[in-house]
């Protein structure tokens, strides 16, 4: 239950900071900004989907997480970790050739890691887990 509330808190914090960012731009969002807002929106939908499925299980009298959900998250995290390493390498390669502010690159890296984890989780959940 605590984990579900923590997820809601994180999602709300992201919505709040995105809102602050949006208002400070004076509603003049660039094309890249629209893509970033879109990605943030998708990540929030992903977090809310997880929270909703956890609450649904609790309402049914089932545990919020069990051995399968833990294994899916564990495998998704490990696969996302390896992909993220190559993603950061790609970003370093990109930063050597295209001059950009370091904070933009770090932001892209964090964004990318969140997206990679979400995609890995969805793919592993769709494919299932078979030991061995």
């Amino acid at each position, binding site marked *: 239950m605590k984990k579900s509330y923590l997820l809601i808190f994180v999602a709300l914090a992201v919505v709040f900071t995105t809102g602050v960012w949006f208002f400070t731009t004076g509603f003049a969002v660039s094309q890249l900004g629209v893509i970033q807002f879109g990605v943030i929106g998708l990540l929030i939908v992903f977090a809310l989907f997880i929270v909703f499925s956890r609450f649904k299980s609790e309402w049914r009298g*089932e545990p919020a997480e*069990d*051995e399968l959900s833990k294994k899916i998250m564990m495998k998704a995290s490990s696969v996302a970790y390896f992909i993220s390493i190559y993603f950061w390498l790609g970003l370093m390669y990109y930063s050597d050739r295209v001059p950009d502010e370091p904070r933009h690159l770090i932001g892209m890296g964090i964004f990318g890691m969140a997206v990679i984890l979400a995609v890995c989780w969805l793919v592993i959940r769709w494919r299932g887990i078979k030991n061995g």
Partner: protein
Amino acid sequence: MDNRIRELRARHNLTQDDLARTVGVRRETIVFLEKGKYNPSLKLAWDIAKVLGVTIEEVFIFEENLDQP
């Protein structure tokens, strides 16, 4: 690994929800098991077999690889 959970569950008039609650997992886990998309832990396999009133070997059919010695 194949299994007979769906068949045995129907024989006991148990829904996926009932079985999930009884063995202490989410309904999604039972769905994954029945579709053959997840191989359970020994503890979960034991609990399912116990609820369905059969042995583990009767629920989960392990296909041995005949090519290996």
